[in-house]
């Protein structure tokens, strides 16, 4: 079974055949055992052992993988599903930048975005207070603001759309 794995911006091919694993062509033996009652797994690669925490992270194939003191957002899909996802992502990218969403619940302190304004990547759009600290939420890309839903003084829930953006 051949998997295309995206790891933090890199794409690797991992072919599985029993305990034989081919990573970008190089052959190793590997296995992943769960530790019952915990999210911890034991990864063996050759004779090396690694403690891994792999947790489902949204869409199928997406895992948050912790190994050797590093965290990775990974996406492991078979070749066919990968191709379909890539097509879907390409059409989505054409429809414009992702909206600014609240990454955590909190209180909107200030709204710095105005409908129609053009903003640069990294520009602060909304300030949300959480855990008694003010957090600036910034535009992920240069964009034009098409709608502002955040209102100063109101509470927001995680995932709520605060500002909608369109490509310049």
């Amino acid at each position: 079974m051949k998997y295309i794995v995206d790891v933090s911006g890199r794409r690797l091919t991992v072919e599985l055949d029993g305990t034989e694993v081919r990573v970008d062509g190089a052959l190793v033996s590997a296995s992943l055992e769960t530790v019952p009652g915990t999210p911890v797994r034991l990864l063996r690669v050759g004779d090396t052992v690694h403690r891994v925490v792999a947790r489902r992270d949204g869409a199928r194939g997406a895992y948050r993988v912790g190994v050797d003191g590093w965290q990775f957002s990974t996406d492991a899909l078979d070749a066919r599903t990968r191709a379909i996802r890539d097509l879907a992502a390409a059409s989505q990218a054409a429809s414009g930048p992702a909206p600014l969403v609240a990454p955590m619940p909190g209180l909107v302190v200030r709204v710095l975005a105005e409908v129609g304004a053009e903003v640069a990547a990294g520009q602060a759009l909304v300030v949300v207070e959480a855990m008694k600290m003010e957090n600036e939420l910034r535009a992920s890309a240069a964009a034009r603001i098409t709608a502002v839903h955040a209102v100063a003084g109101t509470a927001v829930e995680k995932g709520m759309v605060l500002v909608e953006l369109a490509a310049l």
Partner: protein
Amino acid sequence: MFDKVLVANRGEIALRVIRACQELGIKAVAVYSEADARAPHVREADEAVCIGPPPSSQSYLLGDRIIEVAKRTGAQAIHPGYGFLSERAWFARAVREAGLVFVGPPAEAIEAMGSKTAARQLAISAGVPVVPGTTEPLRDAEEAAAIAESFGYPVLLKAAAGGGGKGMRIVREPSELASALGAAQREALNAFGDDAVYVEKYLDGPRHVEVQVLADQHGNVLHLGERECSLQRRHQKMVEEAPSPVVTPALRARMGETAVAAARAAGYVNAGTCEFLLDTDGAFYFLEMNTRIQVEHPVTELVMGIDLVQWQLRVAAGERLPFDQKSFTPRGWAIECRITSEDPSNGFLPSTGRITHLHLPSGPGVRWDGGIEDGSEIGLHYDPMLAKLIVHAPTRPLAIARMRRALRELVIEGVETSRDFHLRLLEHPDVQSGDMSIQWLEAHLTELTSASASDETVQLAAIAAALAAHDDRGQATVSNSPASSRATGSAWRDIARRESLGLG
């Protein structure tokens, strides 16, 4: 000694104080908000009383209600921990007037030192060196601009009642001053109920070195050496160590004497900390005195071989310090990492959720002062610090190696944490050589958060992800589509078909 003490705090510090009480044979009374009904500090206490709803303004900050609980449960003293009511002079006074003992300095010493402006004035009159700046709260942006102009940018805006980085802003350009002042005043008002902010010269490249003092009610004031706390982000300390890599025994003695002089000038009793900026030329400037036990007290405990929280209780009960200054020479090296529920890969945004798995490091020289356990809910009502991981070893390099080992053992699942960021920090050559200033962390933040793993580690992650996906796929086949598997004879083919049809 007291028979019963009320602990007016939550989280790791409440647990820390409860442990100290129990080891001294003192019964501990916990107070808690509705959000903390199942918190570890409630269970570990001998008695526990709910004092209100989750927001701290309706629970942990309600001094009168806490005093009432102390009287009702027969507690003779109240230990405030850090944060919340610990540096409120009115609370210390109210406790005393209720006929109870406040485990901390007298209200008058908190007043003298609790406000940074008052502390500066006191320090100046005691001959303690301070950084140039105002001693009066700023009236408005115009006044701030005029004063900033007088000693030049960059300048630092600080909440008079502040601490923990709240209400603090560095301003590098005159154009940023007005909005920064507004933000600092708002944060100060929200966090401390007081929007007084003052301005001072911002030194480039100094270290944050602070001196622990301990004073009894009989006029004995001792210092317990320094802690280096230069690794800060937004004025929040992330890593602390004792001793400091640059403080010589002679400098330790001079800074210690200065801290003792400042404490004496304030009529200080109990444990407290004088914070200094240590300039690159060896000059040091008094910043403020923290009139409470500090988050980072364990590193001093480990190198000095003393239980500071137990001594807070003993001093408050009237005991005399049996030590002299010569008793305190640092032994070995201690490092503390503050493990927070912040996501360094995402701008340190607070992360919330339930702790689904917690594996604690152990072994030689490792200490965990935590307030979380499996199942703990991490909400937004309180500080994001989950726990402190502290190590002690004979030398600084060994302490760093031990901390890295302990961090690798630590597993916290359910919320994002600062664990990996601490590993990146301790892997950095500047940190390993001790070449740090209070600006170091901010300047290296991008480098640290965007550091990429070795090819080998990336490959391991890819293999793990592929194997995990393969496992989950196998389970999905068995549980979800037995009928169609039989029909096609191949689960794999079936899955592939479903996926290509968008049914997966």
